[in-house]
């Protein structure tokens, strides 16, 4: 494996880790926000 391929693999791993890390916090937060907005609509109904 030449240096360029090795570097590209590291970048891909980093990108994957970045996506997973943001999903790990983003999914529960999005669930919490959606649940809260659903309840908040009752204020104006």
């Amino acid at each position, binding site marked *: 494996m030449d240096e360029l391929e090795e570097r590209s693999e*590291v*970048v891909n791993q*980093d990108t994957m*880790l*970045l996506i997973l*890390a*943001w999903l*790990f*916090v983003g999914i*529960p*937060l999005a*669930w*919490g*926000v959606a*649940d*809260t*907005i659903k*309840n*908040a*609509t*009752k*204020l*104006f*109904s």
Partner: protein
Amino acid sequence: MALALDRSHSIAKPGFNRWLVPPAALCIHLCIGEAYAFSVFTKPMAQAIGITAPAAGDWTVPQLGWIFSLAIAVLGLSAAFGGKWVERVGPRMAMFVAAVFFSSGLIVAGIGVSLHVLPLVYLGYGVLGGCGLGIGYISPVSTLIGWFPDRPGLATGTAIMGFGGGALIGAPLAVALMRHFSSATSTGVAPTMVVMGVLYFIWMVVGSQIVRVPPAGWAPAGYVPPVASQKMITTKNVLREDALKTPQFYLLWVVLFCNVTAGIGVLGQASLMIQEMFAVTPIAAAGFVGLLSIFNMAGRIFWASMSDFMGRKTTYLIFFALGAVLYVIAPTFGHLQNIVLFVLAFAVILSMYGGGFATIPAYLRDLFGTVNVGAIHGALLTAWAAAGVAGPVLVNYIREYQITHGVAKADAYSVTMYIMAVLLLVGLACNLAVRPVSDQHHLKEAPAT
């Protein structure tokens, strides 16, 4: 294990993506932010014996109210006294220790509920949990500032947004778990606390494993650090013990105290306030509280990011000036029975309440430099602890005083709001008085050898 957690083992390797640090910080803040959702436990804990209604021997609501106050007070103290230690050991160890304290606090509180021993609940949620809150809250701050010298407001705002968002996850999670565990003989609080303690421990440990500190001398590509101090942004550093001798520290203490007191008092009364002023149902009132929580969270990242462009002093000037105006006109919206404008006014107020928390680390970094910013931030959080007690007491006392003197319940909040406006004007004056730190407090550079 201890070796793997220390600062030297968490230094980033070349090529590390700094955008991995905000989700690591969010893992901590989204968990400890659960503290804001503590009120979901109040009612079931107050009828732990009676199950469907309070019975003889059940804890009273005021007794349970002390749990949250104790947790916030311990948060302030542990952040103040643990700040130097957090700076020394680094974020990974601090996050891990916060995970141990916060999770064990929930588990001990769950055991206390199960055995119906209130001091054990105070010890668990209030003391152990409070230590987890304080250490966890400050653990990623200086690391984020180190990774984002170009956007410190955005970086710390992202993490501290998590503390505001923690309740949005914690409240529905707790409700769902209590529903699952409840039975004819149990409200389900104890197993819920234990399960949440385990889940939050796993989540926080993941965050502690992701976080990295920047190598010495690291800077983002293309970033040119300022060579000379700008008017309100220093390139020098001040140690924590020296920062405590400056008037700037105490001015910012009052700034944070006023901003938090004005928000926290109303946040605690929001449900009752909208029910009494607009005669809405408790379910709709819960929707109002949820909406305020979203603005509290969103304001943290919005205002902290904006402060990178507007400057911290201008940002706080907006908080206090706009906040005071909104507090003065909010009672009028109440008298006009205009619920949309009333909700909008409080949404903006709560966004600035959250923004105040999120912008303060960057304000401290601007004035005192980066070397001890985490420890100085920890010391400043005693203002939050004080406001956590003063805010609700002030709002409750004023309301009760007026009602016992014949003021209608719907009108009893007007005076409270005017007092909050005055409090914000005090904060405005202190913010305007903030000047750059005098040279005598700056850390002297080591002479070249």
